[in-house]
């Protein structure tokens, strides 16, 4: 199994609070991705990274920011959480082959 961890695995937070989710990999892969998964919408890309400090937006990036200061870590920040951001968040990594591997997911509830 690819070495990907996500933290926290579960979080409940209140509307308006900032939240940061962490993805950590031990594979030294270049590409990292953040997805959200919601019923009826499948997996949707939020942001992705193609190297340290190199990031770009996905299809549902509004309200989210990311940072990648080290190869192994990719952070997703919700600056001011809203109820519409209640979701399951998955991190994924890929090397040169572009085959993606997913982390265990983080279940986020915004009340």
């Amino acid at each position: 199994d690819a070495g990907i961890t996500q933290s926290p695995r579960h979080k409940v937070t209140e509307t308006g609070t900032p939240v940061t989710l962490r993805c950590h990999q031990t594979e030294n892969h270049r590409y990292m991705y953040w997805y959200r998964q919601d019923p009826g919408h499948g997996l949707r890309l939020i942001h992705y990274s193609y190297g340290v400090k190199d990031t770009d937006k996905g299809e549902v990036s509004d309200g989210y920011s990311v940072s990648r200061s080290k190869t192994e870590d990719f952070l997703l920040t919700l600056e001011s959480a809203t109820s519409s951001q209640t979701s399951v968040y998955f991190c994924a990594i890929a090397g040169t082959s572009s085959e993606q591997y997913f982390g265990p997911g983080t279940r986020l509830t915004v009340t």
Partner: protein
Amino acid sequence: GIQVEQSPPDLILQEGANSTLRCNFSDSVNNLQWFHQNPWGQLINLFYIPSGTKQNGRLSATTVATERYSLLYISSSQTTDSGVYFCASPRGYGNNRLAFGKGNQVVVIP
């Protein structure tokens, strides 16, 4: 961008039965992945299959890139095969972002 469609959306199987899931994509692709999301939400890589056929135990996959489809075969299904199966393909050549299908929901009953 590329569109990925999966069929059937829902499937109920008696344990021991065989089944075929299909993934159609709208443009030429240079790779295709199949994933299984188990009832606990974990996404597991099944196959990375740009073309040809691969087998892994009771599962096998075939991609015919020239005809823009891939098939996932489940033989002698078991209750542990329940979950959602996703196929995904890059959004274009040299593009590392994947386009996902909406999934095949499979329930295997004992």
